[in-house]
């Protein structure tokens, strides 16, 4: 299957970023194609490379690991509203627009929303 994903929540506040990462990793492990992961609203905070998580899982690092394998793009407007700038982004992720979300949805067989 060609999978598209939307992530709406920030890391640590809820379990949704964790669930999203575990789900996408499982899909990749099973040989599925992940068309892209789009981040909207507070999901943008998951792309912040400045995250430090002493003694705990580092979700920005986990997202970066994902971004090295699949397309990870955040909504630029949402980033602006949250003060997340390009220089902050984890390696492999990019800032785009809602057109990227449309593209991902249109190219997917299955689309799953996390958070919100």
């Amino acid at each position, binding site marked *: 299957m060609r*999978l598209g994903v939307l992530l709406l929540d920030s890391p640590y506040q809820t*379990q949704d970023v964790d*669930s999203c990462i575990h789900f996408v990793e*499982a899909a990749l*492990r*099973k040989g599925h194609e992940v068309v892209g992961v789009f981040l909207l609203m507070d999901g943008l905070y998951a792309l912040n490379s400045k995250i430090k998580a002493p003694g705990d899982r580092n979700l920005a690092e986990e997202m970066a690991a994902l971004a090295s394998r699949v397309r990870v793009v955040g909504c630029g407007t949402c980033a602006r509203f949250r003060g997340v700038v390009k220089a902050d982004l984890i390696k492999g992720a990019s800032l785009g627009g809602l057109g990227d979300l449309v593209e991902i949805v249109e190219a997917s067989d*299955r689309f*799953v929303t*996390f958070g919100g």
Partner: protein
Amino acid sequence: MATLHIVRRSPHMARDLERALEVARPGSHVLLVQDAVLAAAEGDASHPLLERAMRAGVAAHALKEDLASRAVTRVGKGVDVVDYDGWVDLVEAHQPVAW
């Protein structure tokens, strides 16, 4: 294609599960993840709601890793326990909607 209703919030804190089960038709599926796995627990006050849906032909699944993290050991009869791989399989087989 059947629908896979993915529910994540606790049945004690939100109407998501109730709503998903009102909408689900016989032959569709509900997957409980995160706090929603509480509804899979035999002794939970929300479990009868899930049981009623199962009797009406809705297939219920719950995520193993979330059950373990909430210390749910007595999973209601008829609830299918799946892991993340199983979640992927369910999404592949049915059209997902996240509540």
